[in-house]
């Protein structure tokens, strides 16, 4: 009922301002220059050269801001060490592409002679590869300088391909390849000179990275260059095409990898004395399991987001069998499993990936788990512990007295300076204590039974399955996903002016049965997504 009312008010608002497209007029925030993530870099190379070209090298770490690496991409630069790596990768890719093994099927033309320059062939390669890598048509001077340098090098080395390697390397280290540079221009609204909109190309790029996590394909680029993304029909047609593509799975996967902090798997390690089952393969498969699960539900089955927290289906590999205590029949690859109704596991929260990622190397951590669930899935901010906590309280806190995590954390609940935050994080984390530091099910710790009972904002649960239901039905779960997906899509914090848009998107998401592709469509077509504001006059450092 509240949703309906909200919608009525919004509709009224929309009619009043005469937007006419359904969503409230919400001017977007400032545009920015965004560094490609490692996955986006790999996708760019794959789109152009296929999977046979190996991208090996180390990328600079991403920088997480307000919970998302996608926002950090608007803040990071390139350090000297990072640039060394980019250049080495660029040379490596260029050498592979021009090698005898690949040149004939990857390059669109062959030189008249392999030992001399061939400016015509070089030019056509630079033009077409450059367009894909830089996500725009190259200017004549940009092409000319590369053709000239490649020609001189080909003559010097008496090898056409050495020259071409130079030209390709220069494209792969270019700042407008490594960064997507968004450009805003005045909107065609004479009465609103402050109103900016993304250029056609910038909108195309933003769209394809949002929905596919890769650069625009030829059709999208051509549509943008014809100016057709400017019309609602043109934009909607492309959005629907992108949403219908197989590449959508990659886009959805990238969003959840970011939201779930899965880049932290890179540095994950466990103590083998405590967790003899654990190995790197298991960790990689646990990560992949959750992503497959999410994509299968949200994209393939078009199921609602809230069902992620209750679903009893789970893809599994043989390496994960011992962890979940189930037989896995296929020796290779993935098979689908369904937990019986009385099984203690159901939904995302019972996945091994979360259990191992939000734990210490040698034990589980209800607090780390609680912080993650509150911050990433409910959009609540948990303050850092005060610097000067009186830790003498923990002095008697030996394992012999306090056998379970609940006993150990009890101390926080009795201490005023700890209680405020720990009462937010610990009850839900303790609800997952039957999953140990790598996600294996257990019923006791140090010989004492584990008690998983607790409450999520007033709703009681007895075990992880009921906790999952509580999450699924939490009024925060949908709005939080909307907020995260929107911020991910535009690569920045939402502005105050975009709050009404978020409310509108929340309502639409609920109406659409929490189906993610519907929400992606709403966001991609929203005014906030395609417009921009002036950068702040005095920028923060």
């Amino acid at each position, binding site marked *: 009922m509240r949703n309906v009312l909200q919608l009525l008010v919004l509709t009224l608002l929309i009619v009043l301002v005469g937007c006419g497209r359904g969503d409230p007029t919400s001017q977007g925030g400032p545009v920015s220059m965004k560094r490609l993530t490692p996955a986006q870099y790999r996708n760019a190379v794959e789109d152009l050269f296929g999977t046979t070209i190996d991208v090996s090298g*180390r990328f600079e770490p991403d920088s997480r801001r307000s919970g998302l690496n996608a926002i950090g991409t608007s803040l990071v630069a390139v350090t000297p060490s990072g640039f060394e790596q980019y250049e080495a990768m660029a040379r490596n890719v260029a050498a592979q592409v021009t090698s005898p093994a690949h040149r004939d099927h990857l390059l669109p033309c062959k030189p008249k002679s392999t030992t001399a320059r061939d400016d015509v062939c070089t030019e056509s390669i630079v033009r077409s590869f450059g367009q894909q890598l830089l996500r725009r048509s190259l200017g004549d001077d940009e092409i000319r300088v590369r053709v000239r340098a490649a020609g001189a*090098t080909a003559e010097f080395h008496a090898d056409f391909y050495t020259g071409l390697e130079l030209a390709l390397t220069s494209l792969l280290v270019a700042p407008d390849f*490594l960064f997507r540079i968004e450009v805003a221009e005045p909107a065609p609204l004479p009465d609103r000179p402050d109103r900016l909109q993304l250029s056609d190309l910038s909108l195309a790029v933003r769209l394809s990275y949002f929905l596919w996590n890769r650069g625009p394909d030829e059709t999208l680029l051509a549509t943008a260059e014809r100016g057709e993304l400017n019309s609602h029909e043109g934009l909607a047609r492309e959005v629907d095409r992108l949403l219908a593509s197989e590449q959508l799975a990659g886009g959805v996967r990238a969003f959840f990898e970011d939201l779930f902090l899965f880049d932290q798997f890179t*540095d994950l390690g466990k103590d083998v004395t405590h967790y003899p089952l654990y190995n790197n393969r298991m960790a990689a498969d646990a990560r992949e399991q959750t992503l497959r699960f999410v994509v299968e539900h949200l994209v393939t089955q078009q199921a609602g987001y809230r069902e992620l927290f209750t679903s009893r289906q789970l893809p599994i590999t043989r390496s994960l069998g011992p962890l979940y205590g189930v037989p896995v029949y296929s020796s290779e690859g993935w098979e689908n499993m369904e937990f019986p109704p009385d099984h203690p596991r159901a939904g995302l929260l019972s996945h091994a990936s979360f259990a191992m990622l939000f734990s210490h190397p040698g034990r589980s951590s209800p607090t780390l788990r609680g912080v993650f669930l509150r911050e990433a899935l409910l959009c609540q901010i948990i303050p850092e512990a005060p610097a000067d906590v009186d830790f003498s309280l923990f002095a008697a806190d030996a394992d012999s007295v306090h056998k379970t995590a609940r006993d150990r954390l009890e101390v926080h609940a009795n201490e005023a300076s700890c209680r405020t935050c720990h009462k937010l994080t610990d009850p839900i984390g303790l609800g997952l204590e039957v999953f140990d530091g790598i996600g294996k099910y257990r019923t006791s710790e140090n010989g004492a039974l584990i008690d998983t009972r607790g409450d999520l904002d007033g709703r009681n649960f007895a075990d992880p399955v009921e906790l999952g239901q509580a999450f699924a039905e939490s009024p925060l779960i949908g709005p939080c996903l909307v907020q995260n997906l929107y911020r991910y899509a535009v690569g920045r914090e939402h502005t105050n002016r975009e709050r009404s848009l978020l409310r509108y998107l929340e309502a639409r998401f609920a109406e659409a049965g929490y189906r993610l592709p519907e929400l992606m469509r709403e966001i991609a077509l929203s005014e906030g997504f395609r417009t921009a504001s002036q*950068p702040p006059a005095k920028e923060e450092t």
Partner: protein
Amino acid sequence: MSTRIIQPKIGRRRFLRGTLGGVACAVGLPFLNLFLNANGDAVAATGAPLPRRFGTWFFGCGMNPLRWNPATVGGDWELTPELVPIAHVRDRMNILSGFSVLLNGEANQVHRTGVFGTLCGGAPKKATEVEGPSLDVLISDEIGTKTRFRSLEMAATGSSRHSNSLRDVSSVNPAEPSPLSLYLRVFGSGFADPNAAEFSPDPRLLLRKSALSIVTEDRKRLERQLGQSDRARLDQYFTSLRQLEQQLELQLQKPAPLQACSVPKPPAGGPVDTEIEHVMSNHALMAQTLALALACDQTRVFNMLFSNRASSLRMPGSSDTHHTLTHEEPRDPDLGYQPKATYFVMKSMEAWATFVETLDAIPEGDGTLLDNCLVMAHSETSEANTHSVVGLPLMIAGRAGGRMRTGLHVSGVGDSTSRVGLTMQQLMGLNVGRWGTDQNETDRPVTEILT
């Protein structure tokens, strides 16, 4: 300062011991048979100037002040329990206690304020962001632009994220996460042995240079599209690009022979993680590679991280990390400290001694490599249990090419760590008289340690 006095044999150790009494010994006393030129720079017997290097060495989660801080200042300070592991190298360094990051009304951001306050000269203002540049970047801008690498960052804990070196919030210099990756970066392709008889530059160097210069031609066009903060990030991109151009330039020329330089073998690849013995061994391997990287003048600035902020170090089979122990381990009533957490303090000191010895083991000029280095060891807390940033542990090793006295204990009696940062810059020849922000601003170097 008198110049060019050649002193016949004085035992190096005996000489150093002789200076430890706290008596000023800068009067005309030559040291280590080095010459000083008019700038006070060390000069090798051949007359070629030896490079001066700066580095930081970081260990997480501090120490126990009552067991670490020496009781008296000057040269004959009595060894304290937590400084026992460095006893044999105490004459190679100064112990600085009692210097603090002054909070200036900001919240103490746990495990961040201490380290970035020390490195950047002020308490960080925002909870998530740090204003750079860090000390090493300031110094590398001055002395790091003529070597192959502007600086080298290393983390013995196996994560490239474990780095405190930053130009600003948008560019944190990632660390080499393993001995092998450090080795390959320095001595892999692109390394030219300065002492090799033959020199033939890779013909592809020109090709690489030309690829970079093509990119540079686009700079103006790109800048026009960008707002102020994005333009600053693009500037950083081009700074990094220029650094690589510089590298390629150097590789085109035959390097000058360097007596101290020898090329190591690739390190054996052991496990890379946060288990203490693995960290100890990876740290020792990295120190050896770094020492030769310095001796071969591949870089003049480095940041070695032994353990990360909020130290993840752990014992095999333990469910705790160093960090969780500092908060959760009971204080032993008889000992008066947390024994398990303190184990990692002792290990950190042991590793620091190893690091100093490794640099000191390489002869250079008439002294050692260490004599031409200045290395600041620091942590993000004093007592980690309460995240204290009062009286942070600082140890400064090397002689900065003859500019620093060693063997002393100096107490900052509550002064800002900026005084130490200012001193580091001045010792490295930077023309700076005042450094730090707000309460942490200072114009007073730590004169006690200057020659």
